[in-house]
C-alpha cells in the first residue's frame, strides 16, 4: 500500500486506505464496465472495417440509427425548451402545488421504463385516453415515430430542469437589478443576462437527455409499433439481431451507437461557450441580505400575464407528460375490477417475479453501495493522477444504452461468447440466469451512489478525518465514526435512487434474462410478457406495484431533500 501511495499520490496524505479504496474501485469498474465493453469493441474489430461498415450502412440499420438519433435530438430539444420554462417557474414563482410539481419532475427517473411505455401507449393508442380524441383528426401518435418522440420526451424531461434549476437558484438577483439600473428592460435582461448564464447548464441537460434518449429501450418499444424502416429504433434492432443469433450485426450496431453518442457528447462539450472561465460565481460570496419582500420585487420579476402564461405552460406540460401516465397505470390496473387486480399480483409467476426483482436489487444495490464508498473515498480524500478520468469513468454507464449493457454480457458469457466454452465445460450459467441479471443491473446502476457521495465528500474535505486521526482513531474507526455519519443522508439518497433503477431496469435485464417465466422474469419483464399476451389489466396491475415503488422513491427522495438538503450535496440534479 505504501508503494501505491508513493507511486500514484500527487500529494502525500496521512489519511489511510487510498490503496484499498482505489484498488477496489478500479477492479470493480474494470470487471463490471471496462472489460465487458472492451469485449464488444473487440468483437466489432474482428468484423474488419468493411464488415462493420456493411452492417451499419445496410438500409434497415441505417433507418434505425437515423430514427433513434433524429427523434432523440428532437426530444432533447423539446425538453430543453420546456425544461427551462419549468425550471424558471419552479424557481421564480410561487403558486399552489408548486412543491408537489417539483417533486413529480423526477418521476421519469423513478418510474420503470416498461411501466412508462405501457402507460403512454394506453394514453396515445388510437383507442386510448388522448389517442381517441386525436384519431378523428387523423393524428396518430402511438405506433408511429411521433409515439417514440412522446416516450423520449417523457424519459428525458427531468434532465434540463434539474441542471438549470440550481444555476437559476444561485443566480444573484443583484445581477438582474444591475441590468435594470443600467437601463435594460426586463426582456433585455432575460435575453442578454440570464439566458446566457444558463446556456452551459442547458447544454449539459440537453446532452444528458440526448444520451438517455438514444439508448432508451423500455418505454419506446411499447409505443413505437416497431415497424422496420419506420418506427424501429436502433436498440430494438440490436435485440432483434441478438434473438436471431446475429451477434456480429448486434455488435456492429451497438458499437456504431456508442461512437455516434460519444461524438455528439464531445461536440456538445466543445461548443460550450468558452471564455467564461470557471463556473464559480463572479460576485464575491456575501451572506445574502435578508430583506423582507426581497423575493421577486417589481424589478426582478415578470408582469403577471407573462407569469400566468409560463406557469400554465409548465403545469400543462407536466400534467400531460407526467401525471397523466401515472394516473393511467392505476386506472388501467383496476379496469376489470379489484378481484382481477389482486389475482394478477398474487398468481405464482407474478410472485416469482417480485421475488427475483427483490433478490436482484438486494445484491446489486449493496454492491454499488460499497463501490460508491470506495470510489468516493479515493476521489474525495486524495489527490492522484487520473482522478478526473476515474470520475468520468463512473458516469460512463449513464451514456451507454441498457441494451448494450445487456449485449456486452452476452458477448462475454453467452454460449457464443468469449468465455462461453469455458463456462459450459464447468457447467456455470451466467447469461439467461440470475448472475447475468445481477451483472446487467449492477452495470446500469453503478454511478448512483458514487455520484451522490463524490461531490459531497469533496466539499467536506479531509479536516474531520485528520482531526479524528490526530485524536488517535484508527483508519476504520475514522471511517465508521466520522466519515460515514457525515454522508449518511446522501448515502441513503443514492441508495434509494439506485434501488429504484435496479428494480425497474428493463432493457439490460431483458437482453440477458431469457424470459423464462417464473424463473428469470423480473417484474418489468413480467409486465412485458403479460402486455404482449394482451392481458392488459394484469400487466397494469403488476405495473402499478412498480409505480407505487416509484412514488415511494419520490417521497423518500423529496423528504431527504427537504430535511437534509444541506447534508445531501450542493448539487441535487437527478
Amino acid at each position, binding site marked *: 500500500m505504501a508503494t501505491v501511495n508513493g507511486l500514484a499520490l500527487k500529494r502525500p496524505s496521512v489519511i489511510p486506505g487510498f490503496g484499498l479504496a482505489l484498488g477496489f474501485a478500479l477492479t470493480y469498474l474494470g470487471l463490471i464496465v471496462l472489460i465487458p465493453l472492451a469485449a464488444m469493441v473487440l468483437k466489432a474489430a474482428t468484423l474488419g472495417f468493411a464488415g462493420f461498415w456493411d452492417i451499419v450502412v445496410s438500409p434497415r440499420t441505417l433507418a434505425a440509427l437515423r430514427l433513434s438519433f433524429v427523434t432523440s435530438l428532437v426530444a432533447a430539444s423539446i425538453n430543453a425548451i420546456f425544461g427551462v420554462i419549468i425550471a424558471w417557474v419552479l424557481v421564480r414563482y410561487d403558486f399552489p402545488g408548486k412543491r408537489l410539481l417539483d417533486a413529480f419532475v423526477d418521476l421519469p427517473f423513478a418510474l420503470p421504463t416498461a411501466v412508462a411505455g405501457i402507460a403512454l401507449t394506453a394514453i396515445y393508442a388510437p383507442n386510448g385516453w388522448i389517442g381517441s380524441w386525436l384519431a378523428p383528426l387523423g393524428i396518430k401518435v402511438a405506433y408511429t415515430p411521433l409515439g417514440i418522440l412522446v416516450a423520449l420526451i417523457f424519459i428525458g424531461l427531468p434532465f434540463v430542469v434539474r441542471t438549470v434549476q440550481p444555476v437559476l437558484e444561485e443566480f*444573484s438577483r*443583484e*445581477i438582474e*437589478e*444591475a*441590468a*435594470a*439600473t*443600467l*437601463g*435594460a*428592460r426586463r426582456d*433585455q435582461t432575460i435575453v*442578454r*443576462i440570464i439566458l*446566457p*448564464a444558463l*446556456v452551459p447548464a442547458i447544454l449539459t441537460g440537453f446532452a444528458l437527455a440526448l444520451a438517455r434518449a438514444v439508448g432508451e429501450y423500455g418505454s419506446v418499444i411499447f409505443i413505437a409499433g416497431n415497424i422496420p424502416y419506420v418506427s424501429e429504433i436502433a436498440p430494438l434492432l440490436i435485440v432483434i439481431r441478438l434473438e436471431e443469433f446475429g451477434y456480429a450485426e448486434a455488435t456492429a450496431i451497438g458499437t456504431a451507437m456508442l461512437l455516434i453518442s460519444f461524438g455528439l457528447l464531445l461536440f456538445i462539450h466543445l461548443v460550450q*461557450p468558452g*471564455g*467564461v*472561465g*470557471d463556473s*464559480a*460565481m*463572479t*460576485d*464575491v460570496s*456575501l451572506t445574502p*441580505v435578508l*430583506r*423582507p*419582500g426581497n423575493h421577486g*420585487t*417589481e*424589478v426582478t420579476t415578470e408582469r403577471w400575464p407573462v407569469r400566468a402564461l409560463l406557469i400554465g405552460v409548465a403545469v400543462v406540460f407536466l400534467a400531460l407528460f407526467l401525471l397523466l401516465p401515472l394516473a393511467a397505470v392505476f386506472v388501467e390496473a383496476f379496469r376489470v375490477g379489484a378481484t382481477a387486480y389482486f389475482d394478477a399480483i398474487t398468481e405464482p409467476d407474478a410472485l416469482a417475479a417480485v421475488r427475483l426483482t427483490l433478490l436482484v436489487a438486494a445484491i446489486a444495490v449493496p454492491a454499488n453501495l460499497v463501490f460508491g464508498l470506495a470510489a468516493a473515498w479515493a476521489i474525495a480524500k486524495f489527490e492522484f493522477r487520473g482522478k478526473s478520468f476515474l470520475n468520468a469513468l463512473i458516469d460512463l454507464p449513464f451514456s451507454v444504452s441498457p441494451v448494450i449493457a445487456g449485449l456486452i454480457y452476452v458477448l462475454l458469457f453467452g454460449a457464443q461468447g468469449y468465455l462461453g466454452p469455458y463456462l459450459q465445460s464447468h457447467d456455470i450459467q451466467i447469461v439467461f440466469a440470475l448472475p447475468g441479471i445481477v451483472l446487467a443491473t449492477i452495470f446500469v446502476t453503478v454511478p448512483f451512489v458514487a455520484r451522490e457521495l463524490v461531490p459531497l465528500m469533496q466539499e467536506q474535505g479531509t479536516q474531520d478525518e485528520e482531526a479524528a486521526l490526530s485524536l488517535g482513531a484508527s483508519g476504520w474507526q475514522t471511517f465508521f465514526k466520522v466519515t460515514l455519519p457525515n454522508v449518511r443522508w446522501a448515502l441513503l439518497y443514492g441508495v434509494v435512487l439506485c434501488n429504484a433503477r435496479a428494480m425497474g431496469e428493463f432493457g439490460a435485464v431483458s437482453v440477458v434474462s431469457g424470459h423464462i417465466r417464473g424463473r428469470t422474469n423480473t417484474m418489468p419483464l413480467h409486465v412485458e410478457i403479460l402486455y404482449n399476451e394482451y392481458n392488459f389489466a394484469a400487466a397494469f396491475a403488476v405495473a402499478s406495484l412498480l409505480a407505487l415503488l416509484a412514488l415511494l422513491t419520490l417521497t423518500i427522495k423529496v423528504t431527504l431533500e427537504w430535511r437534509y438538503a444541506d447534508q445531501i450535496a450542493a448539487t441535487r440534479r437527478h
Partner: protein
Amino acid sequence: MDAWASKTFDQSPRQRGGDRHEDAPVDVTVENVIRTFGTTAALHGVSLDIRAGELIALLGPSGSGKTTLLRILAGLDVPTSGRVLFDSADALSLTVQERNVGLVFQSYALFRHMTVLENVGFGLQVRPRSRRPSRSEIKRRALELLDLVQLSGLEKRYPTQLSGGQRQRVAFARALAIEPRVLLLDEPFGALDAKVRRDLRRWLREIHDRTGHTTVFVTHDQEEALELADRIVVLNNGRIEQVGTPDEIYDAPNSPFVFSFIGESSTLPVRVKGGKVWFDDRRLDLPVRDLADGQGRLFLRPHDVEVVADDRDAITGVVTAVRRHGGSRRFELGVGETQERIEVELPSLAEQTVGSKISVLPQRWRIYR
C-alpha cells in the same frame, strides 16, 4: 463640471429632463420617506437634502436602513410613503430603467459571460435605438472609462479573471457609462482587503472630484465615511441620527448613539447640579453651560483626556490593564465606587502600569440625558 466629463459626454440632452444638461449633477431631496416591510419599518420618515455634486456617506450599523434608502434612491425599492426628488422632479414616478442612476453593487454584480468591455458598454447597448450610440462610439466610451478607472488593457478579460479591486472598478466604470444623474455605491469597498480598500478610497475621492457626480455611498465603516465623504448621514433603526461634515459628526456628535458609534468612547454616569458635573462625590472641573440639573451620561474619547496631578476635581481610577495602541498606550481604568471601566490613551512613554493610580480630565466630552 470638469474637463473629462464634458469632453466625453457632451451628447444631446436626454429626452426626459428637459433642457438640463444631461450629466449635470442633480440635487436629491428625500422627504419623509417611510418604508415598511410587513409590520416592521425599515425607514421611519427619513428626510434629507443632498446637494448637487456632493459626496455623501450613509453610515450606520446593519439594519439601520441605509441600504433600503439607497435602493429607494435607485428605484429598486419603493417607499411606503414619502417623496424623492431629483432636482425638483419626482423621481419615484420613474422606473428603475428611466431613473438613470449608476448603482455599484456591493457584490459588483458583473455579468460573468461578458468581457470587461461588454460589461461597461452594456448600459449603452440596451438603450432604445433612437438613443443608442453607434457600436464604435460605445466601444470608444467604454475604453475611455476603463482608462479613467485605470484598467486599460484588461478590456478583453472576463470578470472571473480579475482581482477584487479590479472588479470593483469595472462595476464603477459600468455605472458611469450610462451618464448617471446620481451615483450610488453600496458598501463599495466592503469585500476588499484593508490595503486595497485604502487605495481605492483615495482613488474614489479623486474620480469624484474629477467627474462631479452627486454621489451617495453606503457604509458601515466609519473610517471610510470620515475620510471620504463631504457629509455623513448617520442612520440608526431607520431614523437619521445626525447629518454633518466629518468634523461635525466626530467633534459634535448630537446623541449618545453617534458618540459611541463614531470613534472610540467611554461613558460614565454623572449628575449635573447647579452648573457643575458630579461623578460619585467628586465635582469635576468641567465647564457646563445651559445644562439643567439631573442625571446624565458623560461621554469621552480615550485620546481626548489630560492627566492631571490634582485628583480632587478629576476622574480618578486604578489601572486594570495596559495595551499598546499604535504610537501610544491604552490604559483601562476602574473608576468610582462601582468601578466603571473607561479607557484613556497616554504617550507610550507613560510610566504608569497595572495598579497605578491615574487622574484624568476629558478635554472634549459631552453629557447626554
